């Protein structure tokens, strides 16, 4: 009995060693490579929120001198928060210098993880809470002022619309989409108070087909200028192309999908924020800063589609709106 028991113990120990032996050894090479990891809720090819950040990182990487200077690891489609939390913790324990939690839903988890890794810097968006009030000093926060670009694009749409009917279509009436859609609406109505703005939601971030039907419905109701938010708008853009309506994009430059239909996009340019965070970390500041993407700091950019001529007075009005937002005269 006793020997049998010990034999089993030996077997278990051996099995455990085998399993542990399989694990890739964590190689903590103190090198000059700056290691960034990002965890995001949708895919790096979503033409929207996640892609804007991923491409931003790629751009900074290229500027810093490629993979020898900066290493990027990513986990996409982490829409389950516990999985995302595990990923964040994992990257931190593997010695990444900066771990980006690119989803507002990750906040509660990050607040629990960050104190365990004081040598790692974290970033959380979209939010403006760095948890400093809770005594945490290694979290950066960032948020896009989506309503600013929404307002400016609304001005452009109002001036270019012939029917004075404008359609907006979003996923769920909350968060970044809500900010953008409300800003756009304000921009339209400030320019043409008699214009009619209709808003639809599809209840899903990924229902491409219903988003397409929403665009169809807006156009049938007379809209000639449309906009919308989330990765599913790609469906709506195609409908605009087919029906001869025009589209305004947000989060990422959506011109490539329909060069004949997309007038302009609000593009999130995270590079400035990324560079500042990297510089801070290198200087020993691990967090505590809250960033916003605005026109003023160059984080928001209106990318016009070169294939569609936007009248000079419209562009001038858009620039005036940007200037007014920058000096506080307009608060979208």
């Amino acid at each position, binding site marked *: 009995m006793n020997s049998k028991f010990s034999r089993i113990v030996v077997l278990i120990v051996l099995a455990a060693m085998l399993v542990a032996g399989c694990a890739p050894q964590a190689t903590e090479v103190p090198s000059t490579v700056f290691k960034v990891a990002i965890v995001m809720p949708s895919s790096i090819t979503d033409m929207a929120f996640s892609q804007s950040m991923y491409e931003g990182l790629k751009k900074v990487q290229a500027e810093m001198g490629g993979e020898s200077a900066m290493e990027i690891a990513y986990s996409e489609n982490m829409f389950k*928060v516990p999985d995302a939390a595990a990923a964040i913790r994992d990257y931190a324990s593997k010695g990444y210098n900066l771990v980006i939690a690119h989803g*507002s*839903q990750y906040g*509660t988890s990050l607040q629990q993880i960050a104190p*365990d890794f004081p040598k790692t810097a974290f970033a959380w968006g*979209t939010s403006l809470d760095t948890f400093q009030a809770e005594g945490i000093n290694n979290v950066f926060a960032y948020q896009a002022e989506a309503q600013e670009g929404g307002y400016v694009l609304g001005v452009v749409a109002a001036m270019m619309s012939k029917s004075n009917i404008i359609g907006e279509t979003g996923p769920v009436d909350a968060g970044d989409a809500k*900010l953008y859609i409300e800003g756009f609406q304000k921009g339209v109505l400030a320019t043409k108070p008699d214009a009619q703005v209709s808003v639809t939601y599809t209840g899903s971030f990924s229902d491409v087909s219903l988003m397409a039907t929403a665009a169809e419905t807006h156009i049938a109701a007379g809209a000639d200028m449309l906009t919308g938010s989330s990765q599913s708008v790609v469906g709506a853009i195609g409908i605009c192309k087919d029906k001869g309506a025009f589209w305004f994009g947000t989060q990422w430059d959506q011109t490539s999908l329909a060069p004949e239909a997309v007038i302009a996009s609000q593009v999130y340019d995270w590079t400035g924020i990324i560079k500042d965070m990297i510089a801070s970390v290198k200087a020993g500041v691990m967090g505590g800063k809250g960033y916003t993407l605005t026109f003023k700091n160059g984080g928001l950019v209106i990318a016009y589609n070169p294939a569609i001529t936007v009248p000079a007075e419209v562009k001038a009005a858009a620039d005036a709106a940007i200037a007014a937002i920058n000096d506080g005269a307009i608060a979208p």
Partner: protein
Amino acid sequence: MKRVLNKVFEALLPLLAVPVAFLIGAMMLLALGANPLEAYGAMIAGAFGDVSGLTQTLVKATPLLLVGLGVCIAFRGGVINIGGEGQIIVGALAATAVAVGFKEWPGLVLLPLCMLAGVLAGAMWGGVPGILKARLGVNEILSTVMMNAIAVQLSNYLLRGPMIDPKEIEAGTRIAQSALLPRSVWLARLVPQTLLHSGAIIAVVLAVVVFIFLWRTTIGYRIRAVGLNRDAAKYAGINVPFYQALSLILGGAFAGLAGAIEVMGVQHRMMENLASGYGFSGIVAALFGSLHPLGSIPASVLFGGLLVGADKMQRAVQVPSALIDTLLGLVVLLVVGSQVISRRRAHRRETRG
């Protein structure tokens, strides 16, 4: 004893198909330019190799087991419950609403009340298809699919409106999530610095309860009789529609509890995508356990480990996360596909004597 061993062996036999799935996965990994040995090493170590991995696996296994128990009851009763997703969502919503609404109540009262709310909400969400089936003959696959979609929209509405965290409105970020649950209803952490919570124990205890319920009570016996042979059960005087509705309601109750435990133990607030996938993965976990409540315990841990390990693998070798779904799909297909072998073996054994 030998009979039991034989049975265990036959239950485990289909798992031998897992390596086949992984072999195909290895080819895909090679095609993606990753080293399969490194990838699978990271997978196993990630799921079971250390405390952090093991606790993550158990955290994942908890909702899988709870949903799986409901699936066991439903399948034993001859109905297919694919409404787990929606039932988890309403269970979580109800628990959150009670916790946030009565946050000053003592935890001793509030905590069980939250769980009860989750159970009742889930039972109601499973009850609608159950009663529609019993009374009007509406197929449960149709109604549970629809009820899933309805639950998502209900959750969207509540989380951006009545139940939104007041702080989100204050800050102007307007993220669709509820306020933080009061600490009094947070489930105790079993291992510090990890997410493992006492819900795991509840799930295991309930697995035993379900086993006793299905095999040692009259109601359980009748549910199984209905599932085994509806016509025979009917001739034996069993009210078939009633027991089918009951198995759907119980299935919903367990999924609802899974939702409540997920918010109370892991997330501490209700948010979007809370259920994502557990409703379906729970079905798979239950099947890996041969639709037996006790078999579901190791099966949930194994499947939970597979999910956790696959995520780790994605990070270790940086392959697209879509590979994980592909691999899981293969595992499921091959495991269900090879069950016939053990079934035939059991059949032969029994006919031989």
